[in-house]
Structure formats: structure tokens, C-alpha cells
């Protein structure tokens, strides 16, 4: 949606936020001193005839960053000395409850085209309405930075945030990509660039010069978890006599991505037994099956392993550095088993059953605060 369309749809409605009616509007030309505002909006409260005059900024993008900037600008605009005092107002296609709260806290009114809004006039009026769904979903993000390959960008920042020697900061887009490749992800420079922009729009990342920082790790975790909907193409249950030997076999297959899923890696991060079968994500079911010494099992609960064919990048990312330690704190190589990362494990558990969700809480604490466990 562009500004023109937003303006015409807003003007056509005739209502600011029920019961506040739009009495008169003027488009900004000649408002030299109103810089930052697009419209002068005069509204009336029909019950007692009170009138309020707003300086409205039209913001066709509803991303957190766009709304945040619009709030700053319209507040600045309204703080300028002028004959007629003006109340700050943002108009956008959609305002989520989080954005409405931000607006209210900033003392700025905001309305959208979906029927949500907040009108805040200190000491006189407060109207708050939310819950209407977004009829303009393209106004929210420039891409889907929490799913598929794009999610690797957020994941690599979090993996640094969880590393006591690392910082959730990269000096350039190239460094972000290099870190993703190092952890087994495949992503192009343009995909990194788009995902970083999208995360910036969400105000999860911030940039200074070429450097990129993670500023909202909690929000990033929440978004990654709620966007987790892996597509599984095929499944196969198998009986194996020696799982460790099979892991070695899989590791020896060129061109095969494989990893134990987070659900089946949970014992590496928390005192929790998931039981069999061990679920293993593979990029090619037929390639994996060919290379395993196993017997097909028709009863899922009798299987020792379950292969899940999927191209979901999250399964295969950051899996190759799992090392456990013996009693003397010496690292033991786990014969190349690709256990899921703590982050992937948490994402799957938080989407799991109530028991798994409970364990997810324990793991979350280790994802952002520097961890103390032996996995690095």
C-alpha cells in the first residue's frame, strides 16, 4: 500500500475511532511549520461536541521500525510552537496490540484501516480498540525472516548471544554470511541482506555503520518459535541394532544433510528422556535409507529411528559442534552425531506437548545468558 491509497481509504471512512468522528480534514500543503505531518484532522465527540485537532502522519508500512520512527517524527512535529496546538496521530494500514501499546506509552494516538486504534488525549480522553485482524498483511514485513533459510540470520545472532566468548554483533553482512556458512547453513548474500533488513524493520536488529547488533533476543526467540512449521515430505520408521554405527554411516554420505531433531536431542540440554524412536531429519530419504544397515518397521513405536525427509534449514544448522565431556572435563567426540543445537531443540520443544514445553523453559534460560553447560 502506498501513501496515496492509505490517505484516500482513511479519508473515506469518516470515523477516527468510534465514537470519534472526523469533522474536517486538510491536506498538508502550506503547513510549513507542520513538517512531519501529512494531514490536519479535526475530530468531534458527538456526545458532548468536544473538538480535537490532530496532526496526522500517514505511515503505509506497519513494521515496528516504521511505526517507531513515525512516532518520533510526529511527536517532534507537535512539540513545535504554533498558534494552534496539535495532537499527534499516526495512520497506518494495521496496528498490532504491541504497536498500540507503544503509541499509548508515547502519548501518541494511532488508528489503522482495520478498526484498531488508540486515541490518547491526556486528562480528557482515552479510547483503545484492538483485536481486529490484519487485512493488509503485506504491510507488516518486507519478507519472512523467521522461516526457512532466512531464519538462519536470526539463528546465527542467537548462537553468538549464547556463546560466552562471542557477542551478538557482526561487523558486516559478509561476516554474518560467513558465520552461517561455518555452522553448516547455505545462504546467499542477497538473502542475508534481505533478512537483516526485515529484522531491522522488526526492531530486532540494529545497525550502526556496517555493524549489525542483536537488540531484541527475546523477541527473536519468540518469533522463531511461532514461525516454526517445518514441511516433512516423507517419513520412514526403521529398526537398527547399533545407532552409533548408523550415525557414522550417515556422516560418510556425501551430499546428504542430516541431523537428530531437537525433540530427540533434548537429553543433551536438559534432564529429560524423550524415548524412542530417535527422529532424524534427512535431506534425502532414499539416500539415507540406502546407506543404513536397518530394517523397515511398520509400527512407529517399535522403531529405533524415524527418518524425516525435509529441506527445512533449521534442522541442519549449527549441529556439528556437539562435544560432550567426560568426568575429567575432557571433550569426547560423539562419533559425528549431528545433535540439534540448543536453539533448535528449544524451538521444537516449545511447539510440542505440555511436558516438552515445560522443559523448553529450562533450555531458554541458557540461550541468551552465557551458558555453563559443556556443549559449545
Amino acid at each position: 500500500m502506498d501513501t496515496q491509497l492509505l490517505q484516500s481509504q482513511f479519508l473515506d471512512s469518516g470515523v477516527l475511532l468510534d465514537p470519534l468522528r472526523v469533522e474536517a480534514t486538510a491536506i498538508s500543503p502550506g503547513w510549513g511549520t507542520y513538517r512531519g505531518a501529512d494531514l490536519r484532522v479535526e475530530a468531534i465527540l458527538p456526545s458532548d461536541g468536544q473538538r480535537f485537532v490532530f496532526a496526522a502522519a500517514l505511515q503505509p508500512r506497519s513494521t515496528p521500525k516504521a511505526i517507531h520512527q513515525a512516532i518520533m517524527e510526529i511527536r517532534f512535529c507537535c512539540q513545535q510552537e504554533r498558534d494552534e496546538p496539535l495532537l499527534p496521530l499516526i495512520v497506518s494500514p494495521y496496528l498490532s496490540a504491541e504497536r498500540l501499546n507503544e503509541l499509548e506509552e508515547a502519548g501518541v494516538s494511532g488508528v489503522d484501516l482495520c478498526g484498531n486504534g488508540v486515541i490518547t488525549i491526556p486528562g480528557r480522553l482515552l479510547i483503545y480498540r484492538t483485536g481486529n485482524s490484519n487485512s493488509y498483511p503485506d504491510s507488516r514485513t518486507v519478507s519472512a525472516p523467521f522461516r526457512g533459510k532466512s531464519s538462519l540470520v536470526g539463528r546465527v545472532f542467537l548462537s553468538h548471544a549464547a556463546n560466552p566468548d562471542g557477542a551478538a554483533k557482526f561487523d558486516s553482512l559478509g561476516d554474518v554470511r560467513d558465520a552461517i556458512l561455518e555452522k553448516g547453513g547455505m545462504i546467499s548474500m542477497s538473502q542475508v541482506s534481505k533478512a537483516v533488513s526485515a529484522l531491522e524493520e522488526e526492531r530486532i536488529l540494529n545497525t550502526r555503520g556496517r555493524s549489525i547488533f542483536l537488540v531484541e533476543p527475546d523477541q527473536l526467540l519468540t518469533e522463531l518459535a511461532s514461525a516454526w512449521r517445518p514441511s516433512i515430505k516423507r517419513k520412514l520408521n526403521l529398526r537398527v541394532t547399533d545407532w552409533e554405527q548408523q550415525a557414522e554411516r550417515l556422516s560418510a554420505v556425501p551430499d546428504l544433510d542430516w541431523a537428530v531433531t531437537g525433540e530427540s536431542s533434548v537429553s543433551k540440554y536438559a534432564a529429560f528422556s524423550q524415548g524412542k524412536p530417535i527422529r532424524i531429519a534427512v535431506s534425502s530419504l532414499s539416500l539415507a535409507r540406502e546407506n543404513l544397515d536397518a530394517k523397515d518397521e511398520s509400527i512407529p513405536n517399535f522403531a529405533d529411528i524415524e527418518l524425516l525427509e525435509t529441506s527445512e534449514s533449521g534442522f541442519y544448522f549449527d549441529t556439528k559442534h556437539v562435544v560432550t565431556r567426560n568426568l575429567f572435563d575432557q571433550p569426547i567426540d560423539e562419533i559425528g552425531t549431528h545433535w540439534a543445537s540448543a536453539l533448535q531443540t528449544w524451538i521444537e520443544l516449545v511447539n510440542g506437548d505440555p511436558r516438552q514445553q515445560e522443559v523448553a523453559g529450562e533450555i531458554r534460560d541458557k540461550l541468551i545468558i552465557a551458558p555453563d553447560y559443556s556443549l559449545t
Partner: protein
Amino acid sequence: MSNDLWPHFRPLWQDISSLGQSKCLVAGGYGLYLKQQFLLSQQERIVIPFGQWLDATPRATRDLDLVLGLDLIADEAQNTAVLAALENQGFAVSEKPHDKRWKFLKSIDANQLIIAELHSPTPDDEVEHLASDRVRVKHKPSLGDDGVHGRHNHEAVGGDLRPFRFTIDEVNITVPNPVTWSVMKLVAAGDYRDRSAETTRPSENRQFARNQASKHANDVCRAIAMMTIDEGDSAGDIVPAIADSEPFKRAQAYFEAFFFAEDRWMEAVAGANWQADDFQLIQDVLSSWYTTA
């Protein structure tokens, strides 16, 4: 009621099984109940974990169905010892001619009765000291009132193959392998279902038969759902060993009629107790035995 049976079952079972544990099985609803109690206390993997059962409440029963090994009936001393064990525990032989010497009754109060039924599989022709007819398997020559008979249970075929053994409260218990159990339950369900369709029978009688058919059909599903991984592996040996028997063929025919006929009878009577995928899995397990045999 099933739990209430334990004080009556335990001493009787201990006495009978002390004669030779491998020679006796607990079948029927109470056998399924005991196996379920045991598995609930274990980590053992079964076809459908109890957490997925939509109705894991064991069905109530007042019957003890004990399958006696043929050698137990053929051996005069052991045969009479079985009778002594029943009488010691307060069971008295049923006076109905049809039930005589294989059905025993115990009154536990003015209104409640426990029934112990003794069953036996079909003997091979060459077994000494055994005689059998349509209804019963008995010692030859007759032991008169001093011995017991087994109700001739053709469907107990293969009951001696890989039975499932477990311990509850320090009591060792043996139940049939799931293939034999499925044969017994499919045929029982089928026989009752056929009876319920006989229009010459009184409606009350037909209703009873309908209920019994449904009960046995649900037991088929439970027997499969509780199959352990070792039992699943053993089934591959048991099926070929009994596939040519008449009871297995009858079970096969009932399996096909119950699951694949237009009325989808099994789904109608038992489907609601299982998640759709799990019910399909039960069907698949049975299908692997009855359509490939």
C-alpha cells in the same frame, strides 16, 4: 470388578501354576486386564502407548478364563490337583450338563458370583490319555467327579507358542501370544455376531449376542495395542506355524468381514476408542498376519 478378582484369582492361579507354569495361561478379559496392569508399570514399548488410548479403562469382568495345557489334563495326578485347587479356593463345579467339569462357580456374596472357566486347545490325535469331543477335552479314561475337563477351545491354537510372561505382586503370570489371542477374540466376536443375526432367536438373546460380539471386538484391538516389541517379532514365527489351522482360517475370514465389508463393523463398534491413525495401525498389524499368511 477386575481388581476385586485378584484375591480370588491369586491363590487359585498359584496353586494351578505350581503344577507347571508353562502349562497354563490366563486368557479372556481378565488376562488382558492383568497384562495392561503390568505394562502400565513398565517402560516397555507397545504398539500403541497407553497415553494415546482414548479409553484405557480396562473392561469389567467376572470371569477367569484359564487355558490348561493338554499335558495337565492328560496327567491324572495334575488333573485331580487342579480340581483340588479349585475346591480349596471355594469354587464348585457348575451343575449344568453342558458346563460340567470345565465351569466352576464361587459365590462371594449373596449377589455376586465369580466364574472360572477351564479351556483346552485341540489335542493331536496321538496324545495319550486324552479324549475330546465338540464341547470338551478330558482325561481318558474318565476321572469321573475327581477330575476336570477343558472346554474344547479350538481357537487356543498356538497358545503354547511364545506366551507372554510377567510378574505382578510376586506372582508369575502367563498370557497367550497376541496372534493366538486375536484368533480367540476374532472368532468369539464372529460367532456372537452371527448369533445376533439369527432372526429365530428371541430379541433379548440377540441383543446379548450383539453386546458380546462388540466386547470381543474391542478386546481384539486391545490385544494388538498391547503387543510388545518382542511379541511383534515373535509373531513372524507364530503365524506360519498356525496359518493352516481351521481356527486361524476362521479368524482370517472374520477379520476380512469385520474390517473390509461394506458395513465396516469393526470400525463401528471399536473405532471410537482409538485415534484414527491408531485404529488404522491395529488394522495394519492384523492385516500383516491375516492377509499374508
